[in-house]
């Protein structure tokens, strides 16, 4: 899995790891958009360039085994990767692909990843990640979830 430095086009291999207790000192609301300390009891992952300590993206999730589903609770990029002047591309996509891998590994052909964005950005997620819409919930299932994994898992 990799991300793209927009200014150079260079690709950087990334790793996605569980957030540990020390990370919460750095996961401030100013830089990472949400109060991540409230997610301490959840399953939370961070995205880093391999060999770097700088957290570029974070996702928290809830596994719902009786629905063969993983629901994304919060997902964000770091401050400098927001907006038109962002440094790296593909951070959110890699995080969604990672959650998709967790779901397919656990639930196989029944796997589902869901999230519930606000109306104004839902269309972006539908178009970019080929998500299905049900009410206010967007979801990835087979076959789209496999396409997304293949797209990012290289």
């Amino acid at each position: 899995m990799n991300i793209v430095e927009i200014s150079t086009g260079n690709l950087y291999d990334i790793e996605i790891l569980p957030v540990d207790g020390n990370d919460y000192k750095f996961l401030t609301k100013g830089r990472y958009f949400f109060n991540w300390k409230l997610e301490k009891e959840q399953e939370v992952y961070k995205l880093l360039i391999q060999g770097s300590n700088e957290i570029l993206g974070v996702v928290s999730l809830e596994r719902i085994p009786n629905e063969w589903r993983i629901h994304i609770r919060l997902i964000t990029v770091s401050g400098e990767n927001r907006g038109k002047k962002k440094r790296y591309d593909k951070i959110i996509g890699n995080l969604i692909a990672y959650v998709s891998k967790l779901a397919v590994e656990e639930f196989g052909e029944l796997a589902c990843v869901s999230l519930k964005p606000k109306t104004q950005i839902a269309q972006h997620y539908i178009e970019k990640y080929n998500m299905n819409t049900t009410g206010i919930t967007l979801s990835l299932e087979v076959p789209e979830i496999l396409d997304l994994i293949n797209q990012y898992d290289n």
Partner: protein
Amino acid sequence: MDESIEHGVDSRYHSKEEQESESVKLMQARLDRMKNLSKGQVRSAKLVQLKLKMENYLKNPVYDSHNYFTDFLRIYIDSIYSKHSEFAVDMNITPVFLSQLINNHREPKDEFIMKLMIHSEKAFANVCDFQEENWYQVYFQEKICDTMSNREKWKPKLEKQIKLGKLLEI
């Protein structure tokens, strides 16, 4: 679409009621969509699941005596074939050999694993990027984990046979 909006989503449910209501609607829609899945799409999902399970095992080895290689082999066969005997025919092995292998009554030979690698290369083509050598890695990882988790059983007996005479003189 302006990609600058892609900076974060707060997707938490506001209440238990909202979650339950959305869950019911989502499940109904998913069940409807699942009816349209082809056998090929289901098979692809199972193969990707197997690949991810094997990769996870290699990254996070489990130190016990469980037979992961044969577990993965069984999942692989069941993902593709309705009968194990069909796999045996395609692999040019006897059903008896396959049965003994799957039931852990015999070890896989090199030739079997090599054939399995060739079979996997073909089965995973157009599904996902599968490293066929993972079969070998799983097999040896399992051997290492099995040996190390049982060291209390084999070490005392073998330790008596090992000397470091010359080395200790220096």
